[in-house]
């Protein structure tokens, strides 16, 4: 009777399952191989580090977005919140430093402010979503507007310049590796652990897969949703700090469309908009694919407009690939 594994049809089905699981990884390797084939500049150390630095902010945001999409949620406010958190961070640091505070405590407080505001905006949205069972698409769309308005109010529409030594967060490096890449790696690892190794992560999948069944299995759905948004808020706050310190200034109008880049990375990586499916490993692949494609097109001097078209085509291809490999679900 216990015949798990006995009914496994070997051969084609296995290959398909393998492709299913590693498909996007293979696509990524293919793109890496192609890129190094067509441009001698691609494989240089500087360039690889450039690519990793350039994808770090989007990847960090994509981690939280992956969790949210798996959960059947989404977040359209990330770009605005990145701008808000980033400007708040460099602004606070500048003000504290001007007030005579030491560099280290000022850094810490500024970082804290950024993370706090990231969490606060997301928490507010999540509470509305949970309390009123409101569609996350609309609520986070509203949050996007509010956060953008807040950042303009905070900065008075002006760029924040002369941000001081805090710029090192976005620009400094240990040995060869920039801090931003290390921070990205840490957040990727944390997200992976959350999704794969904790009960909380399982609940995220369950809620996105079938909310009613999750409720009937004793999962307290709303707290899980709120916590997921809070975690995402932390990531967005950190992303904001990296973003603005890399820009060496607080730019209130920046970060527009960042959330869509993050959603794109997640979807290329196999996260299903219907919820219940997705992995951090996939999102990494998605993010690397976008980053490398952008980079190689730049190295080949392809114009930005063509780049957008190519990005669009990659999304379509990824979706087709997803549907083809996962097949019709009964």
């Amino acid at each position, binding site marked *: 009777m216990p015949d*798990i594994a006995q009914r496994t049809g070997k051969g084609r089905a296995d290959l398909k399952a393998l492709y299913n699981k590693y498909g996007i990884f293979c696509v990524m390797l293919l793109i890496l191989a192609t890129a190094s084939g067509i441009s001698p500049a691609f494989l240089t150390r500087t360039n690889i580090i450039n690519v990793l630095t350039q994808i770090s902010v989007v990847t960090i945001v994509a981690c939280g977005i992956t969790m949210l999409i798996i959960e059947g949620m989404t977040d359209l406010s990330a770009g605005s919140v990145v701008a808000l958190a980033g400007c708040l961070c460099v602004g606070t640091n500048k003000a504290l430093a001007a007030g005579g505070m030491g560099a280290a405590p000022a850094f810490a407080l500024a970082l804290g402010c950024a993370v706090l505001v990231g969490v606060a905006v997301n928490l507010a949205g999540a509470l509305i979503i949970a309390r009123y069972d409101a569609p996350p698409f609309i609520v986070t769309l509203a949050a996007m507007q509010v956060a953008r308005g807040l950042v303009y109010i905070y900065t008075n529409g002006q760029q924040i310049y002369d941000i001081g030594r805090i710029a090192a967060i976005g620009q400094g490096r240990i040995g060869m590796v920039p801090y931003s890449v290390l921070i990205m790696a840490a957040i990727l690892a944390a997200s992976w652990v959350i999704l794969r190794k*904790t009960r909380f992560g399982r609940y995220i999948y369950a809620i996105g897969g079938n909310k009613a069944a*999750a409720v*009937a299995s*004793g999962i307290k759905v709303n707290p899980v949703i709120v916590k997921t948004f809070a975690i995402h808020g932390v990531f967005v706050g950190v992303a904001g700090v990296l973003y603005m310190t890399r820009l060496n200034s607080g730019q209130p109008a920046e970060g527009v469309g960042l959330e869509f880049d993050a959603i794109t990375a997640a979807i290329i990586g196999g996260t299903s908009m219907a919820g219940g499916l997705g992995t951090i490993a996939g999102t990494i692949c998605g993010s690397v694919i976008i980053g490398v494609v952008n980079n190689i097109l730049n190295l080949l001097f392809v114009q930005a407009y063509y780049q957008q078209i190519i990005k669009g085509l990659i999304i379509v291809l990824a979706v087709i690939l997803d549907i083809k490999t996962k097949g019709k679900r009964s």
Partner: protein
Amino acid sequence: MSGDPSMAGGDCVLELSALGKSFPGVRALDEVSMRVLRGSVHVIVGENGAGKSTLMKIIDGIYEPDSGEMRLDGAPYRPSSPTHARSLGISMIFQELNVVPELSVAENIFLGREPMRPGGIFIDDARLNRLAAEYIAEQGLGFSPADPMKSLSVSQAQMVEIVKAISCKAKLVIMDEPTSAITDKEVGYLFEKIAELKRQGVTVIYISHKMDEIFRIADYISVLRDGRHIETRPAAAFNRDSLIELMVGRELGSGYPGQGSSPGPEALRIEGFTRGRAFRGISFSVRKGEILGIAGLMGAGRTEVARAIFGLDPRDSGEVYVEGARADIGCVDDAIGLGIVMVSEDRRKYGIIPMRSVTENANLVGLKYRAGSWWIDEADERAAVREQVERLGIKAPSAETEIAKLSGGNQQKVILAKWLLAGPKVMILDEPTRGIDVGAKYEIYKLMRELCERGIAIVMISSELPELIGMSDRILVMCAGRIAGTFERGEATQVEIMRKATGGIGNA
């Protein structure tokens, strides 16, 4: 090979030869050959997972077979889609009706092939409604073509589907378990319609589990098992037991495993459960190792009471006592913490997380209530799930397979495993064997007995009276939100239960 000598000749409308179809990890159909005679009612039986649905989906053009061929009226038949199949004269009526609730009856009948005004841009609404009215009148149906679809009952909606099939000039109508959601009276009406279709020379392929129905309407019966065609014979050549044996592939005993040891002390007692009109003044208790059956018609409030006990729905008043102590259940989490679990009647809606693996589904509750840690110990999880898989005889390509890819019976076993891993004291099973084939049903009965032996109390809600009578130590009958009577083991008969359930003679 399957012998169907009686069908060697005859006017054959559909002929299947050596159809094969595989899904990842499962051989769904294996060399299936079959002939369907014109104007007959051809019933296809088999356990869940036997390949019936796959076969029908191939005939309807949803799936493409991996091998083999089909002939319709002697000509090769390769439908590319259900629409294509319909244009060739084959219509399918699904288990879940394919209707658009917001549209009118007439619009549903002509969905996708609306009559057009000259020019082909605008729908000719007048003609659409007139034609629909004619069809509805022809079939003697009591609703208007302008009625919104959502105002119709399930049975009426089914009739619309049949009208739709007829209006397409279907030669062959496939019905997939059409009686799973309709009343006995409506079943009678459906069968009249089938008889009429037959008189008009339309062939009906009918899929069902229900033995009495099968013998009422079948001209021919084909048995599928494990994706293979076992037998096709005229209905008269079978009897109930021989058919079940062919389906299951082994002989069955009485149908219910023997009774175990006598019940122990009280496990769960509820007093005065009331919520609005849904249920009023419901009190009962169940003892350790006891199976309490709850009978009643649809809408009698059985599921509602169960959901309220489990903390899924609120209640106006009522107390719960677990092992004699008053318990406070505000949400599902509380209930599970007290050892009360509930297997829902609607597996797809409240049971499975369809795209996740067997392991994740089985361990969804156990993570908190068995392991109890925020971290997942994967070795421990694998071991726990494997134990359940072996104990319940869950058939799956692997523990990592998506649960949606399993048959209904195996899905139900995974859901049972999920609740067993929570370490329950009281299990509320709402229609535990609905939509499950005969073999798996027996395994679930056996499991229930085994659980009783271990001192678990079971509350079983069921609409199948033989099952209730065969399994329960006591039966409680609900009618219109109240308890209409109770029966001790041995007292209950189907007639008595139905009398109480329908409110005939109530002495409670």
